């Protein structure tokens, strides 16, 4: 059995973790009742831990048990300041790692974090580093959420520096999810967040279940680590579930790779380095020849593609995970972040100059009473 720990850092990471627990309860409105009478139904042994310096964010969680919520005490919050966050982590490192230790040994750790906030973006590189130091044999995969671009320059700045630190870590790669890209899933911001969180949660659970299932065609944690180590070690996930109108597994695989079904905007044909395609469905829908042909088609552009087939009742469902050899969208983020930082720097200098000019008026004067 696969031992998995999912760590949600900061407000964004907490909410996606809560969505994971909600989906493990069955998801939807029924999970509100189910949490009072059922245990989360994870496909493997899954432990969850929400870490935050803001206690109010922890209180807003609905499907994560109290013992799985860790408040890192910090008097006035991070204020989106990663330096403060790093200091807070270092001060509370032992207690944080102690909480993780309590949950036993693991094979795989998911660290879900926003790249733009205070706690998540500052804690995640340090925490992953600690995890790899204390548990060198486990695979640590970061699920990093990119911010809405209009959220502000600090968030973009945080995202830029945070992403750089994450990519420099000796971890098993990053699965990117872009809020800006997935904004299309919901109308208003709140429902968009909910849908984004649920989408990420379902795909993670699908992945964990598939890695721990008896497959018709086997993919395992090792394959997943290989995929995540490919290219820039930055990847994303696509998902598609066929309906009754079209239950073709071939179409399902193709659709899972279409931009609309990805968490991060990417061109699989051009940018994918390695990929893993996991297909679930009733046996009658699982035409191995079609699956093989389709995987071979992907492999022609993506290099190596692992395929996993899980026989499970229902229409074909396909999860495709791939790492990218190029990430043009990231570059635009960095460019935007840099612009923002430069503009802010200039703005600050101008303000300082104006202030200095103002002070110059009284430079030679003394206070007269």
């Amino acid at each position: 059995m696969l031992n998995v720990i999912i760590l949600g850092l900061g407000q964004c990471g907490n909410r996606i973790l809560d969505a994971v627990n909600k989906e493990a309860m069955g998801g939807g409105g029924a999970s509100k009742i189910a949490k009072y009478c059922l245990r989360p139904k994870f496909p493997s042994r899954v432990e969850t831990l929400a870490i935050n310096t803001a206690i109010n964010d922890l209180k807003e969680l609905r499907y994560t048990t109290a013992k799985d919520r860790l408040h890192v005490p910090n008097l006035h919050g991070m204020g989106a300041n990663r330096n403060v966050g790093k200091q807070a982590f270092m001060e509370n490192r032992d207690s944080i790692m102690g909480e993780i230790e309590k949950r036993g040994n693991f094979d795989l750790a998911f660290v879900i974090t926003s790249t733009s906030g205070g706690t998540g973006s500052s804690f995640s590189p340090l925490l992953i580093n600690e995890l790899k130091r204390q548990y060198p044999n486990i695979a640590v995969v970061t699920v990093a959420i990119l911010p809405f671009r209009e959220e502000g320059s600090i968030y973009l700045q945080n995202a830029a520096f945070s992403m750089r630190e994450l990519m420099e870590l000796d971890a098993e790669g990053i699965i990117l999810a872009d809020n800006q890209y997935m904004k299309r899933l919901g109308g208003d911001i709140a429902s968009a967040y909910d849908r984004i969180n649920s989408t990420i949660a379902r795909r993670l659970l699908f992945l964990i279940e598939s890695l721990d299932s008896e497959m018709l065609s086997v993919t395992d944690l090792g394959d997943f680590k290989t995929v995540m180590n490919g290219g820039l070690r930055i990847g994303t996930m696509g998902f598609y579930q066929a309906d009754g109108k079209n239950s073709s597994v071939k179409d399902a695989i193709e659709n899972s790779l279409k931009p609309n079904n990805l968490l991060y905007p990417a061109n699989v044909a051009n940018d994918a380095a390695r990929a893993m395609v996991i297909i679930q469905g009733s046996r009658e829908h699982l035409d191995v020849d079609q699956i093989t042909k389709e995987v071979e088609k992907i492999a022609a552009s993506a290099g190596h593609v692992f395929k996993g087939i899980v026989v499970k009742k229902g229409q074909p469902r396909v999860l495709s995970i791939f790492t990218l050899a190029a990430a043009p969208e990231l570059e635009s983020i960095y460019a935007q972040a840099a612009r923002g930082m430069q503009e802010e720097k200039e703005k600050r200098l101008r303000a300082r100059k104006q202030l200095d000019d103002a002070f110059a008026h009284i430079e030679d004067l003394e206070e007269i009473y």
Partner: protein
Amino acid sequence: MMESGMRAERSLKGKKQRPDVLRLVCLAVLILFLSGAFMGAAQGADKSDKDEDEVIYNDFTLGIGDRIDISNYRVELIEIQSVKDGIAVMQVSKIGGGLDEQRAFLVNRANNFVGGAEMGGITLTVIDILDESSARVRIEYRKNLGTPSRRASDRPISAGDKPALSVQKSFDRTELNVGDEVKATVTITNEGTGKALNIRLDDSPPLPQFSYVAGYPPKIKDSLDPGQSDSAVYMMNAIKEGTIQVSAIQVSYTDSKDNLKMNSSLPFEIVINPKSIAELAVRMDSSGPIAPGGKAMVNISLANVGAAPATRIEAKGDITPPVGLEGGSFDRSFFEIPPGGEVNYSVMLSGKDPGNYTVHLKATFDGGDGSAIREGSTEVVVLKREYKYEYLLLLIPIVIIIAWLYRRHREYKY
């Protein structure tokens, strides 16, 4: 009773006169035999005269005033002077004069008139006095006098001076119990036409089944005029059970002619049952199990199922064990409960402690044969305090669910 008395009187007369009559009859038979032999000799001497001179006789039963006519002789029974002594008075006359004589006749003594039958007259013999008003008379006569005929009296029959006492003895009940008092009544009534004198009652021997309390032997008047009656009452106590034949009581009296007469009552049976005593049945019942602190009613019934009144009834009750069941007093007193009667009362009890309690009642009474004790009891159960576990059972799943939900809520409460 009167009729029976008369029959008894007649029977007595017959018994007393029978030895004399037999003697006289034997003598008469001897005389007749001798006279027959004599006449037979005469007949042999003169055959034709013999037939005419033959003496024959006829017997007649005459009542007072009845007469026998033969030729010109007339014989009339005037009265029966004494049945006891066998004396009857008859008047003998001859039409045309020459004989008109009233003579007392002793029974079986032949009386000759005009020389007697041998001499052409007649010979009369009262051969039996049947009763106070009739006698059987034999007339002897020569054949040539013709045939005698009986003429009934054309005078009204006079009852005469004849007392007739009827006697009755009766008890006021014919079935009684040992110890019961019974009243015996003896009534004498003169149903005759003459005064009864020297009346004596013979009511002996005393019955051994009774003790005589008062009025025995019964005393009545010495004499009773016609139509008068007298009675005597005496009291007895039955002392021995059984069926008893009460013997007849005899009354003896004389009429104005000092004729002794007797009469007796009819014997009868009475039944004396064993002594009647009171029997008290004690019945108790309670109103069933009671809850702790609840109340129960114990109903007590004292019923006299015996045949005598129960008197001086004292009822005393107690409860065992004495602690845990409290209530009013069971003690009561009643003066009398008649046979078939019943008294009821109730006592309210209050259960304090659970358990089985016995209410015991002892009733002492006088049942007519000394003091007696009867007891009764009933069980009163005070239930243990019942805890409504079944309702708690219903609560258990609810509590479990609530506890489960609360625990889950706590799990998710941060």
